[in-house]
């Protein structure tokens, strides 16, 4: 299948005065139309930066290399004006911090209708009705009344629904969801996940999360990121039931259901990455070669893994 987004050799570095932070390092990733891909990794592994790179929202001091091809064009080379047309309309994002992602002084109805107005999807008269319809579709009982209220009047779960409504307002092809359920309790979280699953049925989803359960529930494919690079990638079911890379094995073993065995040690600082395998110092099956030579991606059927043991 032709991929909708293909990321090739993407590197993002942040240069500060004293050091160079390699947030994302030569990432290759294909996302096909209708794919639901989860990007899994611990905090600071570069998954949010990758999402921001696709949106073209990285700060000025980011040094970006590589290509992000989307519909015959390279998003990294696109003009600002073109990116503005794409953002929200073709590629939308559900932001990370639920509570602070809504403008506190604007009623939510207006915030939901904003992308529709910005991209001139509908005539101005129909926008209000569409915003109310969207809020209704997100599970609001009285969408007309909800539309007039301010963000602080809603609970965290409801705010998350509003964010989903904003992201879906222009019926985008691709939705990037960055930790959509962080800070929600289990009950609300499962409601939101069902809502997202339902709404994403015919869309492409890039889910950024550290929660394996969420990834398993929403996604068909999983890519595991560690210290800025992808260490393993494959169909969600295969990868999560039979992980190949020692890091993925460690992640699964650290789940409460698997006995809560944390991976020893800390992930390397993105400004001082080791020469060899980045997981080497924490890996139970590391060899002498792992600490000196950087492993390449090896392909095994539908799966890819960055480890010498499978090369």
């Amino acid at each position: 299948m032709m991929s909708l987004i293909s990321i090739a050799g993407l590197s993002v570095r942040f240069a500060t005065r004293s050091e160079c932070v390699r947030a994302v390092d030569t990432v290759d990733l294909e996302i096909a139309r209708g794919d639901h891909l989860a990007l899994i990794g611990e905090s600071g592994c570069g998954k949010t930066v990758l999402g921001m790179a696709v949106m073209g929202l990285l700060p000025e001091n980011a040094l970006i290399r590589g290509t992000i091809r989307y519909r015959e064009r390279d998003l990294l080379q696109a003009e600002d004006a073109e990116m503005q047309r794409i953002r929200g309309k073709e590629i939308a994002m559900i932001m990370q911090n639920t509570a602070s992602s809504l403008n506190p002084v604007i009623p939510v109805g207006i915030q939901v209708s904003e992308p529709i107005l910005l991209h001139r999807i509908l005539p101005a008269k129909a926008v209000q009705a569409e915003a109310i319809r969207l809020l209704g579709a997100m599970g609001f009982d009285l969408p007309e009344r909800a539309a007039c209220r301010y963000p602080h009047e809603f609970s965290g779960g409801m705010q998350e629904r509003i964010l989903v409504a904003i992201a879906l307002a222009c019926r985008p092809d691709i939705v990037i969801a960055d930790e959509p359920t962080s800070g929600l309790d289990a009950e609300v979280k499962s409601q939101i996940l069902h809502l997202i699953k339902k709404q994403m049925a015919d869309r492409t989803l890039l889910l950024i999360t550290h929660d394996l359960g969420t990834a398993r529930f929403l996604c068909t494919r999983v890519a595991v990121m560690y210290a800025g690079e992808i260490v393993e990638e494959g169909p969600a079911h295969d990868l999560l039931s039979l992980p190949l890379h020692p890091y993925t094995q460690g992640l699964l073993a650290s789940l409460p259901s698997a006995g809560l065995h944390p991976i020893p040690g800390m992930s390397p600082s993105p400004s001082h990455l080791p020469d060899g395998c980045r997981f080497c110092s924490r890996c139970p099956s590391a060899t002498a070669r792992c600490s000196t030579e950087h492993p390449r991606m090896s392909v095994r059927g539908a799966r890819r893994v960055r480890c010498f043991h499978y090369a």
Partner: protein
Amino acid sequence: MSRKMILRVSVAVLCVYFVIAICAPLFTPFGPAEISGKPLQPPGNDHLLGTNDLGQDIFCQLVYGARITLLFGFCSALLSVLISTTVGIVIGYYGGFVDEFVSRCIDILVPIPMFPLLIVLTAFFSPGVLQISLLMGVLGSIHGIRIIRSQVLSLAQTSFVEGARAIGASDFHIMSRHILPNVMPVVMVKFVSQSQHLLVMGVGLSFIGLWDTTTVDWGTMIQNSYSSGGMALGLWWWLLPPGIAVIGISLALAMIGYSFEEKFNPRVGVNRI
């Protein structure tokens, strides 16, 4: 008196001033410069607040004077707030070299006291009322730029601004639709306090006689009575009315300003919105 009462009374006082200024011809039997009676008459039936040394009606001068004084104060305050809001938002949002440059210029300008600077500038260029109003608007905006910039600096980092970018909003859209509503409370407080400040300063300038002395406003009235020895002669009806008028509006504006500040700034007072 409770805070709420003070606010209500102050707003009422302000409204009275505005009605008087706007409907000046309805209240006054004579024009402000019209010589309508004998000089230096004490208050009486013909002349509600007496006459001045030229025989002009003080009450009519007071009412017409409100027009110029209020117009001057509020126009320069409006201009100053417009400048501080626009410049503050733009430099706070974009940052970088321009922000650095403007901020350093402001650092240089802030310690220069405004009133003496205005006296020097007006004495050199002898501008008209309109030009002084513009000049005061520009000079008065300096402090506001700082305040609004600092607010925008933190607003520009918030997730909702990032979110607005993620839906494809332009910088202009983000500044006007997302950041401006969030700094509006500060802008309102600044506008009220600036109108009081600049209005009194305007009266001060015209009292010193630094603008066209033929225009009738409260400052010129006080100046005329003062320079003709009205005070020494005990002609209270010439001096007190404009003085009280200035104090009244200045107090009303100050009280409104305090109430606004208490409402909008959670760190002052207890009445959070």
